[in-house]
């Protein structure tokens, strides 16, 4: 069943019991993203300590896909290095843009491989990407270009 691939157990679990939800202090930057077609919103904060993503906190309204995606993002990126987070970001974006043709790398994406089914639903891809776009935006503000070089 196609629908079961979309609403995988992992996704529904994260949706019902989101991890790391809530906006926390301290943080280095915040980004607010909206999906204009459906009105889903997420506010996301990052706290960077040296090379490490010390915290990702978020708050938002949206469907199961966008909410679960934020929860999994938190799990996946918090505590890792900034570089690692960008690698995971890229892998996730690639998976979502792959229209179901991209084989996800479980070593990089862990629980997020559950989103492979979402890639088959073009209308939902934006939901899954919403927190990730906000993350990238917040990170760019927290770590200015000069510093990265």
């Amino acid at each position, binding site marked *: 069943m*196609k629908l079961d691939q979309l*609403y995988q157990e992992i996704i529904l679990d994260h949706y019902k019991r989101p991890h790391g939800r809530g906006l926390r202090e301290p943080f280095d930057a915040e980004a607010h993203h909206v999906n204009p077609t*459906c*009105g*889903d919103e997420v506010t996301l904060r990052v706290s960077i300590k040296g090379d490490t993503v010390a915290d990702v906190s978020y708050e938002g309204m949206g*469907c*199961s896909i966008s909410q679960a995606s934020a929860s999994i993002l938190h799990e996946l990126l918090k505590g890792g290095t900034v570089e690692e987070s960008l690698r995971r970001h890229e892998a996730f974006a690639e998976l979502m843009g792959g229209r179901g043709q991209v084989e996800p790398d479980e070593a990089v994406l862990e629980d997020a491989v559950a989103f492979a089914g979402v890639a088959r639903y073009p209308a939902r891809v934006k939901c899954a990407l919403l927190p990730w776009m906000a993350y990238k935006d917040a990170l760019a503000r927290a770590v200015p270009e000069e510093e990265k070089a």
Partner: protein
Amino acid sequence: MNALDVDAVRKDFPILDREVNGNPLVYLDSGNTSQKPRQVIDAVREHYELHNANVARSVHTLGTEATEAFEGAREKVAAFVGAGTAAEIVFTKNSTEAINLVAHAFTAGAQDPRLRLGPGDEIVITEMEHHSNIVPWQLLAQRTGATLRWFGLTDEGRLDLSRLEDLINERTKLVSVVHYSNLLGTINPVDVLVARARQVGALVLLDGSQSVPHIPVDVTALGADFVAFTGHKMLGPTGIGALWGRFELLDAMPPFLGGGSMIETVAMTGSTFMPPPARFEAGTPPIAEAVGLGAAVDYLSAVGMDAIQAHEKQLTAYALDALAATPDVRVIGPTDTADRGATISFTVDGIHPHDVGQILDDEGVQVRVGHHCARPTCVRFGVPATTRASFYLYTTISEIDALVRGLERVRKVFA
């Protein structure tokens, strides 16, 4: 009035034979765009296969045929909405352009005092407008310094008329209101608004995008100054809409888009313009689309707008009852059939509309989810989005049953 034979109607809509995700298509998104009968699809095809040419510019036979078809469509549309003459129908690309066209007629330097707008002047809308009847006025207010004001809504989803006299006052230049809300289903009391606007000398624009397709509309009887509507929601093609306006008023308006066919004479140093409707139809118009829209209003008239309204009322009553019986469903908008159309927005407790829509889609049931281009209405009712089912002449009771069954499945997935 003849009753509507829904089985016969359905045979005219080829898409209704389709399956979606292995289930028969249950199209409950007509408020977004309607499906097209064979008669409309064929009219467009025949036009291209036999009569295609540009209009108003040629003496040749094809050009004459195309012009007659195009102007004939204008006459059909005019008759359909009860316009005094066909010259009161301006073809646009959609409702949105029709509304923007009116908005651009208001300027600080307008010759006609009714169209002169500046700081201190007011435009009045409502909190239940589609974005297409909000943003043009926000942009106009920015251009001119005029103030935008709006009616609030009652919890039932009706206009809060308690501040009528305050909101529509001597400073009001224009009242622009949706006739039939695309989110709430509410049908607004045009007579009350028009009467008050007349008292203070304000113009009235009705956004008829949802009313013209679904209920008998007589623009002359309504008493407004402008009515905007759109072809694709009334069985017609995409790419065409219309603005009805009182001729005298259209004639007082400056051109909007400039270009071919709207001019009387052009010199490098200056141009003069045609009377309406040509003045507002710059460039090659949507010719085949007008022909298709003409076929659409023929079809609607043959079925009968009264019969369509009665059919939709029956569906709405049935659906409202069925949804009332489901404890986790909350209808946003009027919950009885008085002054409401066949568009029902609702939320399902604890489940986001996106997820509701997705699971219904899996069952073949096509509903719209989101803010329905009426975000302020969502904000007013404290919801980020809703699920919306909207019906039309081809909708059946058993399709509403499919919706209700689908909602059970939604609950199961998210249990």
